[in-house]
């Protein structure tokens, strides 16, 4: 029992040593007078508080928190803060209910209205203790006054004003020297037009400066968007035409070499699939074309579904970059490989006809088919190269070549799909024997064994 008494005494001493007010940074005492410029409020299950901020940077906060009313003064700096418990209240009682109602209105009130509402706040039917608590709560606000707002003036920042049209034009002129292409060129043109419309000397000086830098000469070569006016006919020099034809011809030869290299690669590494696809094109051209035609609009949806399917699975997300690269390579190979297979079938048909007529065509037939076929299908573009500079004829030649090339590529794509990239030969049959000379080299049928025996032994 003595030990218990001693323990209780220690607890009593400890409790008694706690100060009645929990002071934080009590060294500073912010003034209780000032002009209110802002207020904040907080309302939760346990707390309802209002904080008024003064023009001096100080603030006063009154909080109802779990049965205690706190008043907190804060100075401009974080260290100057003092927090006191000024009274107690009954949780859920009329005082707290009225205070919560006041805090709930805070978001709809201006700071001056909030201050006025606090200063005149009264609650009917309170006990004496609660009335004292109410006075303690609103006491800190009594000496405060609302800040006088200056008359509303339309203010525009100097920075915004400095963004005049002239500066915009100068920025565009500077930007024009960085690269006169596309939108930058259009921008510069428009800026120049704007400057020409302006009579100021500054604009003329800028034009002269631009001319000295060579910008104006560059701009004169630009294609101006005269959409609502007929385009003038331009006569071109023969040297320009020859240069263009030579450039186009070199481009065509480069394409031929590139496709030929790809065809050689396919013939070397995948001769059987290439042959099957070529046979499919030859035997089922229109079937292949229809399949290729139907496949083209499905490429993007299939790609989207592939990405979506991978994205829906967690593990598939990391495979998306590989899937994108793989899909692009597969589609490119299907189109280019199909086109080369078409060329191979054309070349094969041509060379077999020559062979059937008894002409010598040389060895390495698989590669020869590809080369002859590519020459045939790319010969479509020769008229485009030669006649491209003539307005109407060039357009017709280009359109014809484009359409036929598209048809061949579409058929090649379809044949690739039909033959499952050259694995299935269902739609590719053997060549017509009338188109080949292979029968000339066929091994004659073997001599019947009985006749040979009789001849050798002399039996009749």
């Amino acid at each position, binding site marked *: 029992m003595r030990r218990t008494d001693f323990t209780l005494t220690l607890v009593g001493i400890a409790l008694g040593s706690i100060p009645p007010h929990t002071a934080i940074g009590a060294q500073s005492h912010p003034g209780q007078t000032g002009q209110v410029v802002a207020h*904040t409020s907080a309302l*939760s299950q346990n707390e309802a508080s209002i904080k008024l901020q003064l023009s001096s940077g100080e603030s006063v906060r009154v909080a109802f928190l779990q049965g205690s009313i706190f008043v907190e003064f804060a100075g401009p700096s974080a260290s100057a803060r003092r927090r006191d418990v000024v009274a107690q209240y009954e949780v859920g009682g009329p005082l707290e209910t009225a205070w919560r109602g006041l805090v709930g209105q805070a978001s709809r009130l201006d700071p001056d209205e909030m201050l006025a509402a606090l200063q005149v706040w009264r609650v009917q039917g309170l006990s004496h203790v609660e009335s004292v608590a109410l006075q303690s709560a609103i006491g800190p606000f009594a000496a405060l006054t609302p800040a006088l707002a200056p008359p509303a003036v339309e203010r525009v920042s100097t920075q915004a004003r400095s963004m005049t049209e002239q500066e915009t034009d100068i920025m565009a002129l500077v930007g024009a020297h960085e690269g006169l292409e596309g939108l930058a060129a259009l921008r510069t043109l428009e800026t120049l037009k704007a400057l020409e419309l302006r009579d100021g000397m500054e604009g003329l000086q800028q034009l002269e400066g631009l001319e000295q830098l060579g910008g104006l000469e560059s701009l004169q070569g630009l294609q101006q968007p005269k959409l609502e006016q007929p385009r003038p006919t331009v006569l071109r020099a023969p040297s320009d035409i020859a240069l263009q034809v030579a450039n186009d011809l070199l481009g065509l030869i480069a394409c031929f070499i590139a496709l030929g290299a790809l065809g050689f690669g396919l013939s070397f590494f995948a001769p059987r699939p290439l042959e099957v696809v070529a046979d499919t094109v030859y035997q089922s051209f229109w079937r292949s074309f229809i399949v290729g035609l139907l496949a083209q609009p499905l490429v993007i949806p299939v790609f989207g579904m592939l990405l979506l399917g991978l994205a829906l699975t967690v593990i598939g997300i990391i495979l998306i970059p590989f899937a994108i690269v793989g899909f692009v390579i597969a589609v490119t190979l299907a189109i280019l490989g199909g086109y080369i297979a078409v060329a191979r079938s054309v070349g094969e048909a041509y060379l077999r006809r020559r062979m059937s007529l008894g002409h010598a065509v040389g060895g390495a037939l698989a590669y020869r088919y590809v080369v002859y076929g590519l020459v045939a299908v790319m010969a479509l573009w020769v008229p485009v190269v030669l006649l491209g500079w003539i307005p109407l004829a060039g357009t017709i030649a280009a359109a014809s070549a484009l359409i036929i090339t598209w048809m061949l590529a579409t058929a090649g794509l379809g044949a690739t799909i039909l033959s499952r990239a050259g694995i299935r030969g269902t739609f590719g049959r053997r060549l017509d024997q009338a188109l080949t000379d292979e029968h000339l080299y066929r091994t004659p049928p073997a001599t019947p064994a009985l006749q040979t025996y009789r001849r050798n032994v002399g039996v009749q």
Partner: protein
Amino acid sequence: MTHRAPRWLLGVLCGTVVALPSATLAQSYRTVSATRMAMGEEHLQVDVTFAAGIMRVMPGDGTTLYRGELHFDDHKFRSLTEYDPQTQSLRFGIDPREGTAKVGKLQHSQELHLSLAPQVPTDLTASLGAAEAEFELGDLSLESIAINSGAAATHVYFSSPNRIRCSTLHLKTGAAEFRAERLGNTRCQHIVFTGAVGDVTLDFTGEWTNQRTIHEADIKLGLGQLTLRLPKKLGVAIEVDRFLATFERARLTKVGSSYVSYGYDSASTKLHITLKAVLGDIDIEWVEP
């Protein structure tokens, strides 16, 4: 020994009965408001942060510099209502509390409402998470705007022209439905949109009050549907860089590397659009001004 098991079970039941209400009360909501009088400020920097919920930003009545209200889960988020008079900057919104790795499901919708003084030149920045956001930014004085939304539905609307010229409008969205309407009222010299995945509508109608001015728009979209609503009176030039994306060319003619609208030459205001899209559809709707 035979009585130990029932006592043990009774203890578990009592513990469950005590723990259940506390778990239910774990989501306590808090409402915070902040209002400040306009005292002749010449500039305002506003940073809005909102992780999840419904939010709305709009112009105020002019007497207050800002007026805002937050309603949020106090256990998972903390409020930001900081205004620095020296730098004239406001941070407003909610941030996840430290240690809150996952927000999880919210019992009630969190809300943010903020109104800004129309007459004070303002730089507005907003960072949104999974929020349904509505920005009514007409009739404000916005010098620059940057809105970064995550997985959300965002609607930016300029019902009336910006009071001052604006340098840049930055819009960035993740996987979201995004609509920006009447961008012609922004008076922004440069509009930048970056979208990852989603359904995006950029409406360039409006009053286009800056005559004889070239406006720039940089638009980048990864995967999704992009609809551009363009007024017919505007001179539009579009430079497209696309990969596996369809592009509607109605009323556009190719000139050099750009597509140019009819009447581009005669238009008093011009818009140059640089468009990059990877996968999806790019639709253009021409509307009467």
